[in-house]
């Protein structure tokens, strides 16, 4: 199976490791963001200088940019065209799901009090969806 480390080739193993590192970095930065927003870091967005708010809002971009560099590099190096197709399909659905969720929640902003916070979960939702779709596809073609 693709997620069994024994069956991964070195390229796939390296990609999977780096993907998980960026995923963990995203989760850690997400927790840092939430702590900042609720004031657990000793200062809050309401009392902090605007520049600090910008810095904190730009932080989650770093792992996402890393992921955007990582994915095309892996796809360029992956020789197995079928695996490439599976990864591309998974990424496509990974992008589609957050877009659909954002659109639906965006239209329901009056009824959904959590609508403002939804974009914060986009990267996490993208990664989790892509991983699940990839796992499902690999299982399907066993």
């Amino acid at each position, binding site marked *: 199976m693709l997620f069994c480390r024994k069956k991964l080739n070195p390229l796939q193993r390296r990609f999977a490791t780096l993907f998980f590192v960026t995923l963990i970095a995203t989760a850690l930065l997400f927790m840092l963001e939430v702590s900042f927003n609720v004031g657990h870091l000793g200062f809050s967005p309401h009392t902090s200088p605007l520049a600090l708010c910008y810095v904190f809002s730009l932080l989650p971009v770093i792992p996402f940019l890393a992921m955007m560099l990582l994915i095309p590099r892996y796809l360029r190096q992956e020789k197995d065209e*079928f695996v490439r197709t599976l990864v591309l399909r998974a990424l496509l659905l990974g992008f589609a799901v957050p877009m659909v969720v954002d659109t639906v929640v965006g239209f329901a902003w009056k009824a959904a009090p959590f609508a403002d916070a939804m974009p914060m979960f986009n990267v996490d939702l993208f990664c989790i969806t892509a991983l699940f779709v990839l796992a499902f596809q690999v299982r399907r073609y066993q």
Partner: protein
Amino acid sequence: MKNRLRVLRAERNWSQADLAERLEVSRQSVNAIETGKFDPSLPLAFRIARLFNSSIESIFLDSDPD
């Protein structure tokens, strides 16, 4: 697209893993091609044809000849 990959592989007593190793692809790729769920690219089709000493059209059958 239908193909004779499973037959050709069976004639040589190769497992899907054996064929995958010879083609330098994953076993899932071989399975997907054999079951017609995935059509290989032209370079991979040529590699398969070379491996079985056959032509592409004798391995891959056009289901819509028109």
